[in-house]
């Protein structure tokens, strides 16, 4: 599956060297299909995110890579070695991977240092000690080495779980919603911290999350999942601005959909006519345009085509709900320096370069 995507962020990974490869992988639980024919390649050193709503099969994919579940079809390989197929089965303890679970799954009867040392089997004692100290320093936990998990805060537990998974220098690190149990302020800080630690270790990382902001801010590439299938694979910018379908468009951010008609390479709608970009190939004449609220501009105009019906103040920005003459609604986000009151008549101007169209169903 190769996508020609423009990626504005510089790539810090070697996309040419595959680290984790899934080919036609399927897994179901009874009648529920958790993963359906999934094919994806994750490069050496890449930070890759699986993004999707709960129940879309994203955690199952992690478990398939880790060897905690066995696929019914397809093959999984790590570092070029096949670890799961119809003939091969490598046990999880032989795969050289690290996992940070959503509930961290720290061993409650072991201290922080012992938790981190657990995966360092077969090394000399001082080697183990050195590596544990190195990781404690890296994660800023040196003063807590002797504490037990129940004596730690949520953020500290998360870092212990990360240090523990990194200790044996795994080929891949799997993160299963590791930030979802933290409060908002701490979450932001730990995301940055985790990213820094993983970069320093040069680890290939697969993150599972339902939070698009988290996926966007951390990842080189994002795969959006729905019902066990990959809906779209690409850079965060591509996913946000050039979604392949309405599901992705809606899932990764607020969007309004406006009816339009295609004529040649131009699309006409209530806000004017826009040229189609090369990527967009509408199959039908009747289409819907996706408009992100940050692409909608307006200015006060006594003869404008819309009225402000709701104003929501978010601090740095303000979200406006605009109603057209025919009752249709469109949203706009503007800086909060100047705020227009409800009832103002405005003229809407949509930024044409970012408009995406979908066939109307």
């Amino acid at each position, binding site marked *: 599956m190769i996508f020609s995507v423009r990626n504005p962020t510089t790539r810090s990974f070697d996309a040419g060297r595959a680290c984790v490869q899934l080919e036609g992988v399927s897994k179901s639980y*009874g009648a529920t299909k958790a993963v359906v024919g999934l094919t994806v390649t994750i490069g050496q050193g890449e930070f890759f995110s699986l993004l999707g709503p709960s129940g879309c099969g994203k955690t199952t994919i992690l478990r398939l890579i880790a060897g905690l579940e066995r696929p019914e079809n397809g093959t999984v390989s790590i570092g070029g070695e096949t670890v799961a197929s119809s003939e091969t*089965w490598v046990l999880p303890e032989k*795969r050289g991977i690290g996992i940070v679970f959503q509930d961290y799954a720290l061993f409650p009867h072991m201290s922080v240092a012992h938790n981190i040392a657990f995966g360092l089997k077969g090394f000399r004692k001082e080697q183990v000690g050195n590596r544990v100290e190195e990781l404690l320093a890296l994660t800023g936990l040196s003063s807590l080495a002797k504490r037990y998990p129940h004596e730690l805060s949520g953020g500290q537990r998360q870092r212990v779980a990360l240090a523990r998974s990194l200790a044996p220098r795994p080929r891949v690190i799997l993160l299963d919603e590791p930030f979802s149990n933290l409060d908002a302020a701490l979450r932001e800080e730990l995301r940055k911290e985790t990213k820094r630690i993983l970069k320093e270790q040069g680890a290939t990382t697969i993150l599972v999350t339902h939070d698009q902001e988290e996926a966007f801010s951390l990842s080189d590439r994002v795969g959006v999942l729905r019902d066990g299938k990959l809906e779209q694979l690409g850079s965060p910018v591509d996913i946000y601005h050039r979604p392949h379908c309405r599901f992705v468009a809606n899932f990764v951010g607020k969007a309004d959909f406006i009816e339009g008609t295609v004529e040649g390479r131009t699309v006409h709608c209530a806000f004017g006519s826009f040229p189609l970009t090369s990527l967009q190939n509408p199959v039908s004449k009747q289409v819907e345009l996706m408009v992100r609220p940050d692409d909608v501009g307006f200015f006060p105009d006594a003869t404008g085509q819309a009225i402000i019906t709701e104003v929501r103040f978010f601090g740095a920005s303000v979200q406006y709900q605009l109603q057209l003459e025919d009752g249709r609604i469109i949203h706009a986000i503007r800086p909060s320096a100047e705020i227009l009151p409800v009832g103002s008549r405005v003229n809407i101007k949509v930024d044409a370069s970012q408009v995406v169209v979908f066939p109307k169903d």
Partner: protein
Amino acid sequence: MLLTKIKQHGQGLRSLPMLPFLLVALVVLPVLVVGSALLTPTQEVWTHLWRTLLPVMMGNTLLLVLGVGTGTLILGVSLAWLVTAYRFPGRGLLEWLLVLPMAVPAYVQGYVYMATFDTAGPVQTALRPHFTDMGWFPEIRSGIGAILVMTLVLYPYVYLLARAAFRETSGALLEAARTMGHSPTMVFFRVVLPLARPSIVAGVALAIMEALADFATVRFFNFPTLSDGVIRVWHGMMDLRAASELAGLLALVALVVLLLEHAMRGRSRYFQTGGKAPRIAAVPLVGWRGWMALAGSLLVVAVAFVLPAGQLLAWTLQELPRQPPGTLAVYAELARNSIVLSALAAFFATLTALLIASGIRLSSSRVAFVLGRLATSGYAMTGAVIAVGIMVPLSAFDHALNNFLLQVRGVDVGLVLTGSVVGLVYAYVVRFIANSFSSIDASLEKITPNIIAAARVLGASPWRLLWQIKFPLILPGMLAGATLVFADVMKELPITMMLRPFGQDTLAIWVWQMAAESLWSGASLPALIIVLVGLLPVVFLVRLGNIKN
């Protein structure tokens, strides 16, 4: 085991846990035996019982259940509320002092009170010179006496569960009710009590089960109940059939109590506000109110624990030097028997509970739930019921085995299992496995699938997983459960009475026999040892209560 489990997981197979099924069947067997005996009644048995003891025993049992239920409810709930909602001098100490009476078995409490207040006891002896007629002195050998004595040792069940429930009750709920115009008293009756009801009802049910199981105290107090009846029929008539039918009736009463408990719990059990709720704020009791609270609680501790324990100690110190030589050797022998039996029971209960609890985790949650409930059903069955329920199949097996060997080999081995340690330990396990099962099940709960997965992904072999992760996490639960079973068997009376091998007496049996002959002081040291061992689970319960906070 682990590998097969993973393979099954991978292929979506579901294994049938045969071993847990088998073990649960063994645990449930005695109850089924007495149940079926009740369903196939023999007419002569019931006509005879009806003409003699049955109406009295039924009436007494009902009175006992009502009396102990009401007594423990009032005492347990009010003490629990006192230490939760109010601050007064010595509260911290009293919180656990109030649990101590649990260490005193009802028959020991009963015999001390009997010895103290009976016609020949020190109290009446001291009073007699001052009065011409002692008729005004209340008759201690009565239903009231039995109910009071049992309430004093059984209220801690209600106290512990009510206190735990009060502690979990969010202080915010109380404040919300106050803002809606409720006085503190109204809040207690309309918010606090209904919220704690499931726990309180569970505690009262436990106390009632203990009262139902007791036969010794009620016999001291001349207040025969159904449990006493089963043992009388057993010993007096040696009639297994009649005993098992009467035991079936007793089991039915226990079942009714259980069903009532279930009905009264309602669905409220599942209601809990999420998040970190603030605790109920304790109101300081200043001045004389504080001292009154202290004095009141201390009085309960004194009457229910200090007095009996002190009396036993005094008797022991007073009588021990006067005992004929060899008495200590007899005591040592009794203690050895008690310890060996308790240890065996603790070991097998732990092993069985571990096999069942870990086994049922492989099956679906509904099956596991039912099996778990069945496995722990023994706690609701009184000792007499279980003893009879085990005696019937064991003797049937023994007779069959003996007949077979007689015919095939021509040897007469007699009854192999009946009256052996095997039947006794089997009965103990059935009766007390709930203790070890619930604590092992709770510690298995800590071994989440993710903990296992984390260990495996970090490269742990199945062996290392077992020794470094699973075993250390289950061990505390196993030890706690084993201690509880050990202490319970130390003081156990009806099962030991009915099933013990001939001549193998325990401390509990000795206390019972001595006390039944009114040889109070001769029973004091063994009784004191039983009380001391009984303190072990109290320590566990107090620690558990503290950890939960």
